[in-house]
């Protein structure tokens, strides 16, 4: 039994609205799983179902091998961290950490042991006597994590924990959560709409859309081999360029340009050809010195340039489609220039325009 959380055929309806449908998800022990998706995709709802804060319409939930479908949240062996921190405002930090334990009639010394351990891990000892109102956003979120920590549970649930913080703090805390995970080695399920958080933190990412999991895989896999158009479009910034064309005899035909698909790993047997969409990440369009490794080359006219320091984005039109290309930060281009670009078919993605699935 190496699953920490198993979700089986989960349905959740709010009235007639089907928020989650026939959802299955198994999460390994010690895994850091991120539920990623735009708002309304059901990711938070799923987390709430796991926590027992929402009653499921059908299906089962197992945590640590126990069927907890009907169990109270506090009985499920989970700790949860909320976006708004949800600290009890009139209690001190210590009170916040210990309230649940005191309520469970845990012995006093055990409580203080756990509180000081959590405070130690999160480095919030100096704050213990303060009230939440006297803390910064980052400190509050640490306390909120601490509240989950003292519960001494195997599964941690994070509901967009960093969304209320500014960019700098978010990055800092992200690293800390990652460290925390390595230190504690317990299972973490983390909901976010931020792909950077997802990519950096996750062992596996579950990308959700309309109550369904679109793809469940490692960040690397999701980035390189998106399973469908939605995932491909969702991950990456700026997002993938999509070029509409046709597959014929092992080549992708694009408005006069022929791109041989040799080296491309087809996901399904779809060599017979037909209409297709070629997806190219801006950073996978080669320019300048890298052009050497490209199998196909063409020339486009630069329309707009966005220098970003580390790299430069250029906008152009290829085969009637607006595309963006990521160039070296030191590249000197200006609108009107002709630039030669090239592709590597093995780094591209192909999608069926009908099913939107990866070919």
């Amino acid at each position: 039994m190496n699953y920490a959380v198993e979700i089986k055929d989960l349905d959740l309806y709010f009235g007639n609205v089907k928020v989650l449908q026939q959802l299955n998800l198994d999460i390994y022990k010690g895994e850091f799983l991120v539920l990623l998706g735009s708002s309304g995709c059901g990711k938070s709802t799923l987390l709430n179902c796991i926590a027992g804060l929402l009653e499921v319409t059908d299906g089962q939930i197992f945590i640590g091998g126990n069927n907890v479908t009907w169990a109270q949240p506090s009985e499920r062996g989970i700790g949860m961290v909320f976006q708004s921190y949800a600290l009890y405002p009139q209690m001190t930090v210590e009170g916040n950490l210990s309230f649940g334990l005191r309520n469970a009639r845990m012995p006093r010394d055990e409580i203080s042991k756990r509180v000081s351990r959590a405070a130690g891990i999160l480095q919030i000892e100096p704050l213990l006597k303060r009230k939440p109102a006297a803390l910064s956003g980052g400190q509050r979120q640490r306390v909120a994590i601490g509240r989950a920590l003292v519960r001494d549970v195997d599964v941690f649930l994070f509901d967009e924990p960093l969304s209320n913080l500014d960019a700098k703090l978010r990055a800092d805390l992200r690293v800390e959560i990652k460290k925390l995970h390595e230190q504690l080695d317990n299972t973490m399920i983390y909901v976010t709409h931020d792909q950077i958080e997802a990519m950096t933190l996750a062992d596996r990412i579950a990308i959700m859309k309309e109550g369904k999991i679109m793809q469940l895989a490692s960040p690397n896999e999701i980035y390189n081999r998106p399973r469908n158009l939605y995932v491909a479009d969702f991950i990456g910034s700026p997002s993938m360029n999509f070029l509409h064309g046709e597959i014929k005899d092992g080549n992708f035909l694009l408005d006069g340009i022929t791109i041989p698909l040799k080296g491309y790993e087809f996901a399904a047997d779809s060599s017979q050809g037909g209409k297709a969409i070629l997806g190219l990440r801006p950073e996978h369009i080669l320019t300048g010195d890298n052009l050497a490794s490209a199998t196909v080359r063409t020339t486009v006219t630069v329309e707009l340039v966005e220098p970003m320091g580390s790299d430069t984005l250029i906008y152009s039109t290829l085969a009637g489609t607006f595309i963006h290309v990521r160039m070296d930060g030191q590249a000197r281009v200006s609108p009107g220039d002709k630039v030669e670009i090239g592709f590597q078919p093995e780094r591209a993605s192909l999608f069926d325009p009908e099913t939107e699935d990866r070919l």
Partner: protein
Amino acid sequence: MADTAVSTNVSSTASLRDGPRGPKPRRTFSRRNILLYGTLFVIAVYYAIPLYVMIVTSLKGMPEVRMGNIFSPPLEITFAPWVKAWSQACTGLTCKGLSIGFWNSVRITVPSVIISTIIASVNGYALANWRFKGANVFFTILIFGSFIPYQVLLYPVVILLREIGLYGKLAGLVIVHTIFGMPILTLLFRNYFSSLPEELFKAARVDGAGFWGIFLRVMLPMSIPIFAVAIILQVTGIWNDFLFGVVYTGPESYPMTVALNNIVNSTQGVVEYNVNMAATIITGLVPLTIYFVSGKLFVRGIAAGAVKG
């Protein structure tokens, strides 16, 4: 940790195992529900009974009122008490029922609501967006004014009205309602205008609009909801007023509440409870209608009126 590169087949159906599944079964008649709905039901009855008694009694004839109990439904429905309450009930020599009071109340309420809302909205706008020197002092005075017991100001206002020659006239009462409604309404509008994005105001100023231009063309169109709230607040408040009506108007311009109290307490011979009840319902009809029709807005109105200070 498992091989993270393997993507799980998402759409496949995992086999369910034994044990709990789906929602935790709940009896419809759980103890909690019986307690909850039972309590709510009893409470609802307590709140609903007076209205029920009023309606039922007002539809009975006098003989039935005398013999029956107040909770039994009428054996024979008659609208005569309503007619009488509306147009025939007497106070002294005048037997024109509540209709006069009703029209008086309309005549008092309509201009009072309009004027007080206009003045308060302009006040609130000036306070929220223009912040001239001393504005806060006046605003604080105004807010404290809302806590002064009316009795303290009762007589000074008599003098004030006498000095401007409006004592005992409808216009006088309109002024009184405008004055006493001002604190809450001003606060309401000030808070609302403060909540609008300031950029809007700044943009309008850059575009060269003046005080009134911004108010009429930028602010007003955006404040329909708060106007609705203010109007609901004022209509019910002014319609239900008794004290000011008694003190600042004469019998020929008594508002409906005062007329009701007079009719009910001016008995000649037998007390006609059915007529009294009908009169009471008629008096409450306007605010009740507003309440039932505007529903959510009414709730917002009182909540907004409540956040004074």
